[in-house]
């Protein structure tokens, strides 16, 4: 009993220092943003700049908050995708590509096949899963670093999806007048995720139950990771591949499964946005991958790869992004919000350092490793 208590205390301690480290990252990020605002236009920096970013969606209540919720849902999913792969010691920088494929799968089922929304969502997840599985297979069987493979497949996916949707302007999913894919409400209203009154509350057409689906997914991921044998195996592979193999865990299978599930989560996220009519795909944009995939890295890091934490970090990141969009463009570029989230990830890259310092300051007690902690940096040689 006392040992149990001790373990619980240890876990709590680690949790609290993780949260403090995250808050510290956020604080420094916001400070840098504030400094940037003051440099650009000192006169309006506080009231029309910083306060609007802090207020986020609440600056333009119900509408702004609705927008925050719409954007949070896919962000939670890409965050979960990155966090899930982190637990197995993999860095899923490919969330952007899996997200792209997910958007394609969902939109195809909606616009061409006119399937109901839940089938479209599953298709999104399936397409994302395939794109996630490829780097997993390369990693498991050829020992090629998943970061490199994912980056390559991000671009391959983007060009491929654009090619199929655009098809030289003749694609069946492409609306030449808007240079986007067709609006779901016009073409296939049955494929829209139901709003259940949310869109009336927030005065935005695109606020749907997607946010609840994302939260449910986060809880499901938490259960898988913390309460099942499968999750335990995944984490064991992440902590020490060789020890896991010695313990009879099939590390190849687990690597591939982990990347597949990560891909499915990212693809599902794309479905949540595009099937809520939160956006339409622009196949003429061949120069940048969806930012949602990279912001997912930010939210996962900020949450220290904790699935439940990812919900909150995603809400926060989309809160300040929406806040950034309310900046008066006369005085400030809206990219200040991107600057802040960029700084936050940069700081998160060495958040372990913060965590260590905070832990030392808070508790002088012993520091025991925890199976749920982030995997240590890999020291094994990898082919590329």
């Amino acid at each position, binding site marked *: 009993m006392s040992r149990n208590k001790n373990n619980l205390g240890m876990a709590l301690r680690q949790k609290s220092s993780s949260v403090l480290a995250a808050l510290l990252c956020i604080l420094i990020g916001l400070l840098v943003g504030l400094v*940037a605002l003051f440099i*650009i236009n000192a006169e309006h920096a506080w009231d029309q700049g910083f306060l609007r970013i802090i207020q986020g969606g609440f600056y333009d209540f119900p509408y702004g908050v609705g927008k925050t919720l719409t954007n949070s849902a896919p962000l939670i999913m890409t965050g979960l995708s990155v966090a899930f792969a982190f637990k197995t010691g993999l*860095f899923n*920088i490919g969330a952007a590509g899996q997200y792209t494929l997910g958007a394609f799968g969902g939109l195809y089922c909606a616009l061409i096949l006119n399937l109901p929304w839940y089938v479209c969502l599953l298709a999104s997840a399936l397409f994302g899963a395939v794109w996630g599985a490829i780097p997993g297979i*390369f990693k498991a069987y*050829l*020992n*090629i670093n998943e*970061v*490199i*493979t994912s*980056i*390559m*497949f991000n*671009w*391959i996916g983007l*060009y*491929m999806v*654009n*090619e199929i949707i*655009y098809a*030289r302007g003749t694609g069946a999913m492409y609306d030449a007048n808007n240079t986007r894919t067709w609006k779901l409400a016009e073409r296939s209203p049955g494929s829209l995720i139901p709003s259940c009154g949310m869109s009336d509350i927030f005065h935005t057409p695109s606020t749907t139950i997607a946010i609840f689906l994302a939260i449910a997914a986060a809880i499901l991921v938490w259960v898988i990771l913390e309460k099942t044998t499968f999750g335990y195996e995944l984490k064991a592979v992440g902590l020490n591949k060789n020890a896991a193999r010695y313990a009879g865990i099939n590390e190849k299978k687990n690597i591939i499964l982990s990347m597949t599930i990560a891909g499915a989560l990212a693809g599902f996220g794309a479905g949540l946005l595009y099937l809520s009519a939160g956006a339409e795909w622009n196949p003429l944009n*061949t*120069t*940048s*991958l969806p930012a949602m995939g*990279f912001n997912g*890295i*930010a939210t996962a*890091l900020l949450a220290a790869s904790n699935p439940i934490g990812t919900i909150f970090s995603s809400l926060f990141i989309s809160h300040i992004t929406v806040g950034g969009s309310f900046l008066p*463009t006369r005085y400030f*570029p809206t*990219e*200040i919000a*991107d*600057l802040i*989230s*960029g*700084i936050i*990830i*940069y700081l*998160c*890259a*060495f958040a372990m*350092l913060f965590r260590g310092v905070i832990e030392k300051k808070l508790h002088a007690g012993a520091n025991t490793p925890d199976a749920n902690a982030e995997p240590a*940096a*890999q*020291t094994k*040689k*990898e*082919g*590329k």
Partner: protein
Amino acid sequence: MLLLIKYTLLYGIVLMLVALGGMFSEHSGIINIALEGIMVIGGLGGVLAVAMLPNTLPAFVIVTVSVLVAALSGMVFSLLLAFASIHLKADQTIGGTALNMLATAIAIILAKNFNGSTSAKIDYTNNAFLFKIGGLELSIFVPLGIVLLIISYIVMYKTRFGLRLRACGEHPQAADSVGINVYKMRYSGVLISGLLGGIGGLAYIIPSVQTWNFEVGVAGTGFLALAVMIFGQWKPVHIFGAAMFFAVFKSLANIADATILSQLGWSSNIYNMMPFIASMVILAFTSKNSMAPKAEGIPYDKGSR
């Protein structure tokens, strides 16, 4: 045909410069995912310099100053990566990813601020950078790139510095035991990659157009350069070949619609996709005897065995 050669040379030199930068960084033991961001920042610095210098200055001055500014801004930006990954022992891929996101945000903010408007487009004149041989219009970066390639080769294989740099990427503990300062060598590696990446960013932006929208960044060229580096197996001359190989596809994508190739009915997306697929295939076949520096990606800890 002349157009194809022109585009291939222009784009190939860019890829080669940036990939050489990545090579220096990785041989010192630091994975440099931030090449894309370094290119953006270097390009921004160089373009701002060109836009601010009066047109009346001699071409030589404009070129020298803007290239130096580009190199310097790339180096300053790469210091962020060096500091995080060498001193703070941060995860290099995460740090690099963060820097890529930061670079685009910083570039857009600075460009908008420079314009004093909501547009991130910067106008400039690029006459100073172009010259003609016969009917072939080339940029100053082609000869500059070849000179830098030769210098890189000499530095990497014929100097004490190059040998020490490579030692730090292969076995930093052994290098340290014979009195090489691993931290210093890794800083130099990353800084050189910032220098070459910054120049590469400018070389990407300047020759082809007279206005650049920084919301586009450099459209994934930095990531392609990473692929070039792997394709070139971390060796300067191989990297040159790989860069030209990749550039041919990119040029095909540019001119596909205007030439006889359009009858194949392939769109630019397909040509754009090819280099990435080619590098995946090469990776799959060479993974067993990869020439990658052994210690790359691992923060150097003096105390570890």
